């Protein structure tokens, strides 16, 4: 099949970007989307042009490096799938595809389709952990954890930190990302000691990074390649509210 690509090209954070059109001829249906771009890039290099920069690493849908918008949908049209696992058989001859980077104030563009998601690391740094000094842990079976709780925690922990939720949200909210981590740790007995502090600090950091607020639209859940649920946002809100009220009482 032959495709027409319109790709956002931007040399660096300081310069203005623009859409540029490229042909993607003879695309094989068994290619992954990124392999299709590899071939386009090889062609650009042969023509003496600069290849399109995009982020990727594992190409198995787990590292969370890849991601951009395809015709306005984060990670493209297939549900529950990262762009690296999306295959070209889902497209047809003559399709025109518009590729744009994640668009959010908190994710500045570095080059072309590559954005800076450092804000996510800073949210984790602000409390997305359980303090357990190496070597100080009790036996792994010392605290039985009901399977249901453990499974729910795992559902939230499956987040790959790709940023699709932010890109899809009209408010550029990071509530699903932040809520998933607060849920994962807060659902487990090990996470209780720092539960309030974690919610307060992570939400404060989230606000400092200029992500928008959540207004329960649900685009985040719809595009999440790991199908993380919005109920995690509710858990975050509950933990935050409780912690905020308790900290008022304490002061």
């Amino acid at each position, binding site marked *: 099949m032959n495709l027409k690509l319109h790709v956002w090209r931007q040399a660096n954070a300081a310069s203005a970007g623009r859409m540029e059109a490229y042909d993607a001829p003879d695309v094989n249906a068994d290619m992954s989307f990124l*392999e299709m771009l590899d071939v386009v890039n090889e062609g650009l290099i042969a023509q003496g042009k600069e290849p399109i920069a995009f982020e990727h690493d*594992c190409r198995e849908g*787990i590292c969370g490096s890849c991601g951009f918008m395809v015709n306005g949908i984060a990670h493209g049209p297939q549900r529950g799938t990262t762009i690296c696992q999306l295959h070209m058989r889902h497209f047809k001859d003559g399709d025109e595809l518009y590729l744009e980077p994640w668009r959010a104030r908190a994710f500045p563009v570095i080059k072309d389709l590559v954005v800076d998601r450092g804000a996510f690391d800073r949210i984790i*740094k602000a409390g997305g952990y359980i303090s*357990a000094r190496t070597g100080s842990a009790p036996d792994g*079976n010392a605290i039985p954890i*009901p399977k249901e709780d453990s499974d729910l925690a795992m559902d939230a922990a499956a987040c790959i930190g790709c940023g699709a939720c932010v890109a899809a949200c009209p408010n550029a909210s990071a509530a699903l990302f932040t809520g998933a981590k607060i849920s994962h740790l807060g659902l487990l007995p090990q*996470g209780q000691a720092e539960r309030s502090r974690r919610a307060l600090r992570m939400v404060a950091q989230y606000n400092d990074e200029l992500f928008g607020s959540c207004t329960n639209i649900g685009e985040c859940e719809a595009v999440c390649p790991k199908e993380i649920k919005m109920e995690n946002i509710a858990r975050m809100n509950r933990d935050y509210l409780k912690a905020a009220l308790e900290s008022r009482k304490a002061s």
Partner: protein
Amino acid sequence: MHLDSKVPSGPIESAWEKAKFEMKLVNPANKRKFNVIVVGSGLAGGSAAASLGELGYNVKCFCFQDSPRRAHSIAAQGGINAAKNYQNDGDSVYRLFYDTVKGGDFRAREHNVYRLAQISVNIIDQCVAQGVPFAREYGGLLANRSFGGAQVSRTFYARGQTGQQLLLGAYQALEAQVDAGRVTMIPRTEMLDLVVINGRARGIITRNLVTGKLETHVADAVILATGGYGNVFYLSTNAKGSNCTAIWRAYKRGAAFANPCFTQIHPTCIPVSGDYQSKLTLMSESLRNDGRIWVPQQPGDKRNPAQIPEGERDYYLERRYPSFGNLVPRDVASRAAKAACDEGRGVGETGLGVYLDFADSIKRLGRDTVEERYGNLFEMYERITGEDPYKTPMRIYPAIHYTMGGLWVDYQLMSTIPGLFVVGEANFSDHGANRLGASALMQGLSDGYFVIPYTLGNYLASTKLEKVSADAPEFRAVTADVEDRVRRLLSIKGNRTVSSFHRELGKVIWDYCGMSRNADGLRTAIDKVRTLREEFWTNVNVPGSGEDLNQQLENAGRVADFMELGELMCLDALDRNESCGGHFREEFQTEDGEALRDDVHYQYAAAWEFTGPDSPPVLNKEQLEFEYVHPAQRSYK
């Protein structure tokens, strides 16, 4: 070069306790005066940086990805072994030790393996405390599953994402230390060289991948945790960015490289579908429990599998290995698939694939049971290939996915350059010639959480380190080398892309130094690699400049190093006139085609020493002693 393994004397059971007691300690108030560099943020690097930060050292941790959470440890599916014996099925530290030494085909150092087995139990406790959501039983206790190469159920797992969950645990511990101000995390930065002053590792030169700026970092010790070199094959299950540059640069600065030819090929991966293919995806080995592997009896039979009658199929594993059948170990299954394809009996468009057929299981167990056991894997297969494995047999083919070789380290995990430590897949230490399933995660975390915090302290406390500044002539000289290399790569502007060289290199290594090797082939490969390397340095086209994000330039530097490492792999494979584990030399096999080890002449770790760009590397041997587990031949007939 003198290889001193520094293995403690006395009984193996108490060797690590004894070693820890004999180690010198750094006073708590003095720890903050030491600067430590950790390169890599996967299970080994992330856990090392977090633990050293907790202890109070000044740690700088580097990764080339945009975040430490993306390191390739994240892709490990199956699980992590530990000798907890929670199942009451007879497991013990000694049994895990025994299985690992035997599984490694008697080419690993016994003391390191014993320590690994001991520490395995602490790893699970540590990860549970961090909130890793391991699978649990209804009673709330930890669940286990079985894995290849063991008769006990000792593998802990978090669905099919164990690597992800363990890595996120280490990443969160690391971020907690960043928060505490003990660790400075430097992402999107690649180590391009090591600086050695007065024989000791004292820092690194890095390139900021966004600005292109070269930076110097001075330290009292350097820890490399940069993973394996499977991408020398171009097509592998490794992440696209995984590379050998850090360990290769260290090798060229004096660190011995051990057993480079020990690479592991995994039998059940999705086959290559075309020339554009960029990577291979692994399908869990568990599929072989219920799938039957076959190819057509007649070479060149291109009929649809459904049209090939039972009598014209060859279930070659069941035929050749009647007692183990489809469940022979990884290396045996991989070689048999290659043999069938070499005979022209491979399936799929490329002819490089064999069928893994579930039709009989579906008939016997019903579709529901098969779906319950393998549903997620079938879905993944369909996502990639567009074929429904419930209706048509899966096509699989072996692919490279782990490298047992790496920089040589002693019992303290220190390389032959004092002050340079190597942890995780980047070192050669624990798996010998073949790694057992679910042992890679165990080793990465053992090295990072539990070994390096002791051994690094011992080095710092017992060594007099002079003050060094980033203006030292050694730093300037290495920086100039790096600058020169970047400039050269950008100035060639030839006619071939970096990937075209990488693909060609990968094909040579795969054809001649892959699943089976022979002396003639290896000599051919060495010639081909040399020729290709010469062409690379005169005809590669690296577009763009060195002053911004340039993914082609990053890749060019990595491929240039793979081209040198590929030659050393072939040399090592040529030198080792025996077959063991993942290293199968066609000349050395039993009458019925099994690996033939030579313990009299080759019971050693081959540690290669760089002697200059124009002179051959020198082979140093660390003789391996087997005091506890006695070498025997493996049989699966």
